[in-house]
């Protein structure tokens, strides 16, 4: 029995964020498949006992039960990687990592919602969500234009961090909700570099080939 259990749905992008982290860090774990679509199992009483918000992913690490994608990423990158390379603690770097990691939970919430509407048929105003998501992706592209000019390939440090990891799926999956990659050359460049990191894995909607 593995210490770590991920309550997962394969088509959910937040679960993908955690699967990516587990893969990059090479952490042994068990997966419990949750019937999110169409069953809404994550909203049932058994799952709400683990996460009262009724959402995925949920991570169990020994006695610790965590929900909230970004919290899980932070936990894994500090508790299961001695060097903590995905969440550096040098103060200025740490703050930048936090800013962009929170961006994935706030400014990109519309992108995650847009994809749910487009892929799962969840109720929502796809046009408004997509418009908002495009603005968030532009902010990311603008940032990476400047980072590249300054000689860096990653959002917050000179190596990839949980900021890159938490932002990336919204761009990699943007065609799912109707936003093409044409207008974001700096994000295309970043995605290509992210894809070749050892341990990278895809999910449905992100091509295996590139």
């Amino acid at each position: 029995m593995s210490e770590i259990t991920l309550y997962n749905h394969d088509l959910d992008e937040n679960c993908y964020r955690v699967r990516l982290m587990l893969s990059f860090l090479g952490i042994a774990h068990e997966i419990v498949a949750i019937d999110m679509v169409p069953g809404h199992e994550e909203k049932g009483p058994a799952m709400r006992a683990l996460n009262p918000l009724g959402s995925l992913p949920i991570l169990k690490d020994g006695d610790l039960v965590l929900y909230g994608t970004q919290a899980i990423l932070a936990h894994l990158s500090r508790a299961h990687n001695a060097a903590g390379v995905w969440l550096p603690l040098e103060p200025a770097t740490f703050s930048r990592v936090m800013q962009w990691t929170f961006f994935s939970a706030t400014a990109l919430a519309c992108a995650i919602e847009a994809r749910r509407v487009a892929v799962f048929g969840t109720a929502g105003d796809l046009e408004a969500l997509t418009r908002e998501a495009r603005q968030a992706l532009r902010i990311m592209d603008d940032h990476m234009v400047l980072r590249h000019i300054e000689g860096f390939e990653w959002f917050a440090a000179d190596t990839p961090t949980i900021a890159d990891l938490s932002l990336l799926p919204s761009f990699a999956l943007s065609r799912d909700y109707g936003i093409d990659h044409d207008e974001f050359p700096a994000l295309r460049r970043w995605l290509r570099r992210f894809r070749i990191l050892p341990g990278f894995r895809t999910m449905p909607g992100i091509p295996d080939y590139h």
Partner: protein
Amino acid sequence: MSSEAAWVPVALSASIEPGTSAGAVVEGAELVVWRDAKGVAHVWEDRCPHRGMRMSFGFVRGDHIACLYHGWSYDTAGQCRHIPAHPDLDVPKTIKIATYAVEEAGGVIWTRLATAAQAADPLPTMGTNLPVRSLYADCSAAHALAILKQTQLPVGKDETYPARLQVVTPHAWTLEAGALSLSIAVQVIGPQKIGLHILADEGSVDLIAALARWAQALRLALEAPVTVAEVA
């Protein structure tokens, strides 16, 4: 509108790395821009003849690009060479993607949406080759021209200078301010959508970050609601 003989930009050269592809739209026409492993850039119609999938979603292997759906693979002439589901098939010559003329000059990939037989306009010369960035904005090219006529460019630390705008061709504009020369290769995507591929002269390498920030602010100006007075 551009004539079919005109050279139109589709990307900054630096944005299309060897072995990669991207989509680009010129006046509604969907194109794939890709660079083979040898570094040669190609611009084609963005459609696999098999199922209509966009080739820009595909992947480059050596001097071929393959469709993401079923792996149909095309050589640099747009000719299909390999169909994975029928590996022994001698692929018919009719399975071919329309290709367009490509020239790379001054850090820009230019194409011409004309048949080979039509005479080409000369390539615009702009005298710059340091990429600043590609900027995409929801406005017309005419509106962008009007805004750029009044722009101030960064010419030093916290110093800006009014820029002189020159229209070399409908798709190549230059801006000059002090010692700084900037050029803009203008991609008309649709009536209210443009791509501005911005480059600076080699002497302005220290200004690139400031120019990228200028471009970011320019997009806000380009997309700001137009007042009634301006329309009239």
